């Protein structure tokens, strides 16, 4: 039976294939969901600092970056199982010291930098590209190219714009951080906000699209 593989043709390169494991027993399998697994199982292009807690190996499943390092994690970072590092091509995701990543889905084609002491809540999407062209004619060609049998080399080039999230920022549940956004240090992003523009340091932003609603110091 033909081996069905979904997803882009550019599989990760230069990283150890973690899936070539012998049968795991039930306890080992549960450990990989509850943070008790061996970090040696991570792809070769992931750097982790000291005293980090990674809940699930699944967070690094979609990592397909050819860059080394492709993911850099600082010291004392907690990464919960809902986190997904979908890092493609030659992209990089950096996470600063003492951050808490509960459920961000990183979709990265360039660079996403998370500062220190950043708290990212459940169901957050951090996406640094539109991934598809907006012009209708190019979009139609793109739709054909990305089908399973399509010619992936005819895809439109992916324009990605780096995202920077400053130190001490808190990102609320369900928020979306879109391409090219820089969020200043100490900002708070409300639950459900869709951030399409830069947020200044110390600002409190919310809504869809997100607007600055005030300063964090006033609302505390």
């Amino acid at each position: 039976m033909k081996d069905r593989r979904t997803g882009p043709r550019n599989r990760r390169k230069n990283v150890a294939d973690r899936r070539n494991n012998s049968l795991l027993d039930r306890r080992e399998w549960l450990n990989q969901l509850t943070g008790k697994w061996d970090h040696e199982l991570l792809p070769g292009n992931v750097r982790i600092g000291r005293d980090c807690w990674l809940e699930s190996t699944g967070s690094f499943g979609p990592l397909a970056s050819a860059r080394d390092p492709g993911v850099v994690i600082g010291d004392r970072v907690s990464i919960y199982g809902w986190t997904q590092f979908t890092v493609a091509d030659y992209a990089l995701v950096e996470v600063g010291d003492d951050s808490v990543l509960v459920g961000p889905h990183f979709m990265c084609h360039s660079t996403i930098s998370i500062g220190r002491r950043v708290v990212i809540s459940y169901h957050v999407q951090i996406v640094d590209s539109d991934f598809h062209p907006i012009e209708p004619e190019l979009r139609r060609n793109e739709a054909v190219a990305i089908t399973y049998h399509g010619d992936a080399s005819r895809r439109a080039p992916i324009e990605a714009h780096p995202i920077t999230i400053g130190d001490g920022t808190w990102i609320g549940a369900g928020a979306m951080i879109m391409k090219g956004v820089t969020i200043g240090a100490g900002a708070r992003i409300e639950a459900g906000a869709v951030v399409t523009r830069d947020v200044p340091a110390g600002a409190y932003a919310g809504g869809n699209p997100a607007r600055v609603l005030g300063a964090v110091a006033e609302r505390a």
Partner: protein
Amino acid sequence: MTSVFYNPDDGEWFEPLPDNVVIEEHAYLYSSYAFRHCMSDRDPAVRIGHDTCVYANSVFELGPQAEVTIGAYCSIADPTIATNGRVTIGDYCLIGWDSVIADVPWPVPPGSRAGVGGQVNPSPDSEIVLADNVWVGARAILLAGARIGENAVVGAGSVVDFEVPPGMLAAGNPARIVGPIRGLRP
């Protein structure tokens, strides 16, 4: 035909259910995996009413003083309930996919709350109450202070932290009361 009720002896693939989680008769729970981050010391911490279904990606991220009560005949479709306070859900409620019921806008699992101060680690007084027959849309967010009246509907993607009167539709981000539900007898 195998029963689809919660069967800890046969159907459970994760660790045993915590002692302070009560599942009433004919209720369905996918797995105790939903309680992997539950740190509540209350007794009971979670009560799931009879004939209610709690589906696979639902998760209860409960702090030490948290208490969640879910009524009968509810469909709990994959919300994230993250609180150190009280959440009360009435009978016949429908809770949509990927919704969030939390006591602060930046909830984190209880194991991480101590390390993050301020509003991320609030007091246990917060309360979220849903009356009977409430429909919470997909990806909606209910925050502390949300009181949803009987028969009300919360639109998909809304962020609600205020009182929604009975029979009303609340929608938007920021949320507004849009108007009464069509078809509701006066």
